[in-house]
């Protein structure tokens, strides 16, 4: 079965600092990969998805970016964080008949 590893679990960063969140997938190949954000009191918003290496689609304009350097690796980045980037970030994959989610990263921008 598929397993998603996300790290770090918790992160506190100052405004204007860079960000790198990593997600790796085990137990599958050529998955669709997704980054979702869950802001306080809100649902899950799709940020990026990728159907293959180097292929990134953005759903929401923002100061975040994503990259997929390897088949099972998906990275979320920012050059300069904003307060509004605070939230719970979830990585997900689809490679069968369902979606598997990582355990998430709680990002607080101060």
């Amino acid at each position, binding site marked *: 079965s598929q397993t998603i590893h996300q790290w770090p679990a918790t992160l506190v960063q100052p405004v204007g600092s860079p960000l790198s969140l990593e997600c790796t997938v085990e137990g599958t190949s050529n998955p*669709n990969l*997704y980054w*979702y954000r869950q802001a306080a009191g*809100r*649902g*899950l918003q*799709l940020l990026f*998805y990728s*159907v293959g290496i180097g292929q990134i*689609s953005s*759903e929401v304009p923002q100061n975040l970016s994503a990259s997929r350097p390897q088949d099972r690796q998906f990275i979320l980045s920012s050059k300069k964080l904003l307060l509004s980037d605070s939230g*719970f970030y*979830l990585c*997900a994959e*689809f490679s069968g*008949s*369902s*979606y598997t*989610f*990582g*355990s*998430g990263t*709680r990002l607080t921008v101060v």
Partner: protein
Amino acid sequence: AQSVTQPDIHITVSEGASLELRCNYSYGATPYLFWYVQSPGQGLQLLLKYFSGDTLVQGIKGFEAEFKRSQSSFNLRKPSVHWSDAAEYFCAVVGGLSSGSARQLTFGSGTQLTVLP
């Protein structure tokens, strides 16, 4: 474009009572539907899914959901709620699962369930 509405932001039930969480979707064809549960600070756990066939779907932890095309609904039910069911519940829809498609999950805004002792 697909969309999901969960009209109840917060529901409170007593332990042992029955539960129904509402979910309405918007999609032009037959959707693929999911219910997920999220405990505080955790990722999402799949409760059940509907792709085709029997419109009454059984899931884990005693949950079930019924797909009603005429009402564009996929409500989640449980006959007797346990205190450990307190969590946030998300309904989600994807329009297509064919190879090469983006297969984007669209989520509802979630329903927070509180269980009273």
